[in-house]
């Protein structure tokens, strides 16, 4: 049917089908800014303005738009123009992955059209319907208020921050742990912010950085703010087919037979693949270095299913509707098998054996569903425990949660004109995907190209070759481009999640509270497949046993199969599980010993110069000894503690509110310590070449998943090469063009890929100096490269443009260019402190988190704006982990939380106040002194909230999430 409506201020006619949603119609018409996120109107990514009101297009019929005025982000500003709202979002750091940005910008427009002077509360309400998993909403809210100022015609000063004094000619400056002066980073322009960034002004070197340490706007921000076609799905290919996946309705079953004849006969169906059609190649789907950690217990399509949501068959058809129709015509003959969902039941004799296939490789004890085990120790734990004056033992449990990136998993595969397979995919690990998929589809690596465009959030969920193999099989079977995308429901049933853990800590201490022995016994639920199981578990062991100084430590873990959807990598990677247990445990011990919880921790915590004993026995890529060479923990505790007004913990009256007798208030904290990259394993690399005008191309394999890594890597190159960031053109994550990188995980990109970029830029700089010496008839001795110009000690200079022209066209012609790789045996831990203020309604058990403060020592923040954005976003995810998110199942193992309405990720209007601080130190092994910042922020909210609930009520909750009913029950029992 033909509809007529006003689209972006132009009268438009559009031919739509009766059953077409407005989302589909708009995307088909090339309005790519309108994104698919959930199919239920609950994520907001598909929003447009209809007659000035924000509406969800995924649950509206296109025909219903007839006669209305529709505005998409494309309609805000033509061509290269930028609308003030877009400008404000770009400048305020509101854009991380950018997938929900167009919707947020429209939500902002709807507000600002009505309200010239919006309050923060109105801004929160306005952004309420557009879920964002990256930012924690702090920067977007600033974007709204900044945009309002622009639209009122006010002068809005740029974001600014004092340069970080880092000795430009390198070599570490004394690793100060006590910086004090505020840097003056205040996002300004009448914009209320809840975040402060503190830099390290006590360093007194002469030279300061110019680009490193500056809040540069992200290099990809403009295209994201304008909603340009930048994501995997923002394109079509001629003849492209649409794929759909049939999944298991049973938690455990053998497939006796599959009859696909009816499905194949459906007009428009081009291929139907089952286990009968694809080669049986054993693999592990985690995006990890070669060889993938064992067990290898998966195949592309199997004749057995091991959880509700497991792969059964895949169809490619002319349209998605036909593909979905075909799924219904596939007849599967299941022999339903008994299933097991509790890891402690799963390891018992007689439990259903989940992996009985003979060709799995490296399962520790398949008969007892034990995927792997870990035992690591230093010192003599048994003796130290036996001799300890005081002993403690407590057990903690953590739940399964989902990464919930707003962009679902999606890939498009096609043959290029040279018969090479192109995989355009939303992945964190393009190089691992290329290597891992090759044997599955029977192509050599040389015939595969993996391209990662912009990606709508990952958080570990896309550190996985999750769907690329199925799309590739279909392209190979049909010869045609194939698009495969998960539905939001499949994100819950058939993607990855966070491993649930049961952790028992045992500690032996002296009477005065010095730790003598610490043992951590863990059972990890790895679901139906072992992917990431053993490495997540080893990180949990590392995180649980590193923070506190102790010679006698032991980690004893079992990684156990169950018939549940498969956990995998999720930001923190074992850290949040371990730190919930550890930081609750430390709090319990301190209270039992009647010691101040912070003082008790600080009496035991590792400090500058200390080694980490457990690192000599345990590591994700094998043990590598570690020594602390930068440490800002004390400052972090002071900063975040002051910000939450921790002193109130000493006032017993503060817990009560005379106006509200059913309310108790509480404060809690946790110490944070994470890792930076996998020592001895992770590698990144870079290529830099110089162009005629003195600009540079920077090519990196590093994978920007919204974190801003393209930007900070560009900043490191720009700083080293003496140019502004605008002179560095960053291109990343294309296996045909960019050099190798392990990908975006393990908090490694700034440190590892940044190290490669810095080395590479230094090499280029040396070539520039040599060329300048040739041009000036002098030596490179004492040359300085600054402000796009090389200057000699005697004051002569040449510009980079002159150098480029000379090298490319004039004499001894040469392309100034370099490559470099970087790996590290050091994994310098970032430190931090997380504080929480909460209220408990003692009649309903409802816990309301009022405020969260966090301070993190990440070495030098290369870009304080993106770094603090990492903390805010991580804290928001961690809050969900602490109080609301949980994948819940019925008795048959079928997941009950299949949409955002049931799975609670926080929205802007319900977030507590977040204050995030950076406390820089100088890490000698990192580029410009940098360490990791991507994951540490997700580690501490759950224990801080649990400790605050204890402070408020005396109730100790040892399992998360802290749901109202759990608190109510515990309060009930204690009475």
């Amino acid at each position, binding site marked *: 049917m033909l509809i007529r409506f006003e689209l972006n201020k132009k009268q438009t006619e559009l031919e739509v089908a*009766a059953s077409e949603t407005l989302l589909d119609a708009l995307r088909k018409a090339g309005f790519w800014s309108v994104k698919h996120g959930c199919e239920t109107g609950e994520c907001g990514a598909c929003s447009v303005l209809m007659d000035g009101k924000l509406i*969800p297009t995924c649950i509206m*019929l296109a025909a219903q738009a007839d006669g209305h005025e529709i505005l998409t982000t494309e309609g805000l500003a033509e061509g290269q123009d930028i609308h003030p709202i877009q400008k404000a979002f770009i400048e305020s750091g509101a854009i991380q992955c950018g997938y929900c940005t167009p919707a947020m910008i429209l939500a902002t427009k709807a507000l600002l059209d009505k309200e010239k002077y919006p309050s923060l509360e109105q801004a929160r309400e306005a952004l309420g319907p557009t879920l964002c998993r990256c930012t924690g909403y702090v920067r977007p809210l600033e974007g709204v208020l900044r945009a309002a100022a622009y639209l009122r015609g006010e002068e809005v000063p740029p974001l600014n921050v004092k340069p970080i004094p880092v000795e430009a000619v390198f070599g570490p400056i004394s690793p100060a742990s006590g910086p004090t002066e505020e840097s003056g980073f205040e996002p300004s322009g009448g914009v209320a912010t809840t975040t402060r960034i503190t830099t390290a002004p006590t360093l007194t070197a002469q030279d300061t950085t110019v680009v490193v340490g500056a809040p540069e706007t992200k290099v990809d921000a403009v295209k994201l703010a304008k909603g340009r076609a930048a994501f995997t799905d923002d394109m079509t290919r001629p003849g492209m087919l649409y794929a759909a996946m049939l999944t298991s309705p049973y938690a455990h079953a053998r497939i006796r037979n599959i009859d696909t004849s009816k499905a194949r006969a459906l007009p428009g169906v081009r291929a139907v693949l089952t286990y009968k059609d694809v080669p049986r190649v054993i693999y592990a789907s985690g995006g990890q270095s070669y060889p993938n950690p064992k067990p290898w217990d998966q195949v592309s399509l199997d004749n057995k299913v091991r959880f509700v949501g497991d792969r059964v068959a895949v169809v490619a058809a002319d349209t998605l509707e036909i593909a979905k129709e075909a799924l219904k015509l596939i007849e599967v003959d299941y022999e339903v098998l008994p299933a097991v969902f509790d890891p402690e039941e799963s390891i018992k004799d007689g439990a259903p054996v989940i992996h009985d296939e003979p060709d799995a490789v490296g399962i520790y004890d398949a008969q007892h569903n034990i995927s792997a085990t870990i035992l690591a120790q230093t010192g003599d734990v048994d003796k130290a425990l036996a001799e300890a004056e005081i002993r403690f033992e407590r057990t903690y449990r953590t739940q399964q949660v989902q990464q919930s990136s707003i962009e679902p998993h999606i890939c498009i595969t096609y043959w290029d004109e040279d018969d090479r397979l192109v995989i355009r995919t939303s992945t964190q690990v393009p190089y691992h995907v290329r290597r891992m998929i090759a044997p599955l589809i029977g192509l050599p690596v040389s015939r595969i190209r993996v391209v990662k465009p912009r990606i709508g959030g990952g958080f570990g969920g896309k550190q996985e070759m999750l769907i690329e193999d199925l799309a590739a099989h279909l392209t190979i079977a049909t010869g045609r481009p194939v698009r495969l995308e998960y539905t939001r429901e499949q994100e819950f049933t058939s993607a990855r999640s966070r491993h649930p853990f049961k952790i028992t800590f045992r500690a032996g201490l002296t009477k005065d509270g010095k730790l003598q022995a610490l043992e951590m016994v863990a059972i990890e639920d790895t679901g139906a497949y072992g992917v990431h199981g053993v490495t997540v578990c080893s990180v949990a062991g590392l995180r649980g046993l590193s923070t506190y100084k102790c010679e006698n430590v032991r980690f004893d873990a079992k990684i156990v199969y169950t018939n549940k959807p498969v956990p995998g990598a999720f930001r923190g990677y074992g850290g949040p599980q371990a730190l919930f247990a550890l930081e609750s445990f430390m709090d319990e011990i301190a209270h039992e010993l009647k010691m101040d919880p912070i003082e008790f921790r600080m009496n035991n915590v590792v400090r500058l110069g200390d080694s980490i004993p457990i690192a000599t026995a345990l590591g994700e890529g094998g043990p590598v000894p570690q020594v602390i060479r930068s440490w800002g923990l004390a400052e972090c505790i002071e900063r975040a503690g002051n910000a939450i007004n921790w002193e109130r913990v000493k006032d017993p009256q503060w817990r009560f509110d005379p106006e509200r007798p059913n309310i108790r208030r509480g404060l809690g904290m946790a110490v944070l310590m994470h890792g930076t990259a996998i020592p001895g394993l992770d590698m990144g690399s870079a290529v830099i070449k110089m162009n005629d005008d003195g600009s540079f191309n920077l090519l990196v394999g590093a994978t920007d998943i919204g974190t801003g890594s393209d930007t900070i890597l560009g900043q490191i190159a720009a700083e080293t090469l003496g140019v502004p960031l605008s002179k560095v053109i960053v291109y990343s994550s294309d296996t045909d063009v960019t050099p190798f990188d392990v990908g975006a995980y393990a908090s490694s990109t700034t440190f590892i890929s940044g190290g490669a970029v810095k080395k590479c830029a230094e090499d280029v700089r040396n070539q520039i100096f040599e060329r300048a010496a040739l041009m000036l008839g002098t030596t490179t001795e004492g040359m300085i490269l600054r402000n796009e110009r090389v200057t000699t000690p005697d004051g002569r200079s040449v510009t980079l443009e002159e150098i480029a022209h000379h090298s490319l066209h004039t004499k001894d012609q040469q392309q100034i260019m370099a490559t470099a790789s970087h790996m590290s045996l050091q994994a310098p831990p970032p430190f931090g402190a997380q504080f929480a203020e909460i209220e408990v309604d003692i009649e309903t058990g409802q816990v309301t988190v009022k405020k969260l403060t966090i301070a993190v020592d990440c070495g030098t923040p290369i870009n304080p704006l993106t770094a603090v954005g990492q903390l805010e976003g991580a804290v928001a995810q961690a809050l969900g982990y602490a109080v609301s998110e949980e994948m819940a199942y019925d008795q048959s193992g079928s997941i009950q939380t299949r949409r955002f309405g049931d799975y609670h990720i*926080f929205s802007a209007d319900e977030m507590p106040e977040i204050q995030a601080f950076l406390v820089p130190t100088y890490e000698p092994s990192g580029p410009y002194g940098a360490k990791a910042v991507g994951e540490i922020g997700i580690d501490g909210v759950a224990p801080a909230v649990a400790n605050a609930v204890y402070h408020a009520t005396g109730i100790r909750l040892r399992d998360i999430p802290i749901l109202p*009913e759990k608190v109510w029950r515990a309060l009930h029992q204690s009475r």
Partner: protein
Amino acid sequence: MLPEFDLVMPRSLNEALQVLAAGSPEVLPIAGGTNLTVDMRSGRYEPKVVVDIEKLPELKGIRRENGQICVGGGVTIAELLKDGLVAETAPVLKSACALFANPLIRNRATVGGNLVDGSPAADTAPSLLALDAEIELTSQDGKRRLPLDEFFIHVRKTARQPNELVTALRWALPKPGTGSAFYKLGLRKADAISVVSVAVVLEAEKGVCRKARIALGSVAPRPVRAKNAEEFLTGKLLKKEVFEEAAALTAQAVSPISDVRASAEYRRRMSAVLTRRMLEQAAEQTGWKE
């Protein structure tokens, strides 16, 4: 794209009722579509014909009519939320609308759609039950009105016949001495289906309860009234002990289930806690101080 169907776009209520006249369950009306599109995608409903009633003028408007408030079945939640008449005469409904799904869905979802979905957790239902609202159903054969309490039958089952549309909701203007309160206990602020929701409307004279309405969501196969508690309250002096007793009676009136959001026991206990609190709040609004 959704599973295929034919879309009919009538220009008047009569035209729409004609299409629905055969009473086939395969012909379904759509307004905001916030439930129906999701249900069609999941395969819960597989209509052959969908009738777009969104733009029908007969289903629009909020007005005063013969001492009552009359709201068209096609009025959106956002319209209810910002309407002055609703705020003045039915604050208990406004409170429920403020916590209805998310602002995005409020711009599309209609009050009629929320009710005909037959969900025990329908966000507007407890407030409308507490207002003693009447629902108007219209078919080609004519109009009928019934108390909303008789409209809900069971989970996803209501008194609406396939040939009928919800054309209006009506409730009486509040008498002097009326107080009301609404609370939704969820795992999150709004965009979560409630664990328990409670709406209370009290009419009192000099502190004596003349009429009480207590309605709850998510605690039975349908939105329910706690009639035993309502009867108990009638004629009683509004005071703490009375509220406690009424709350305990309310807990007896509900028949919750355990699901992923909460256990039956918790829901039952919270029904009492929240009812007591809402009675206290509503009583305060009647102008009476203990």
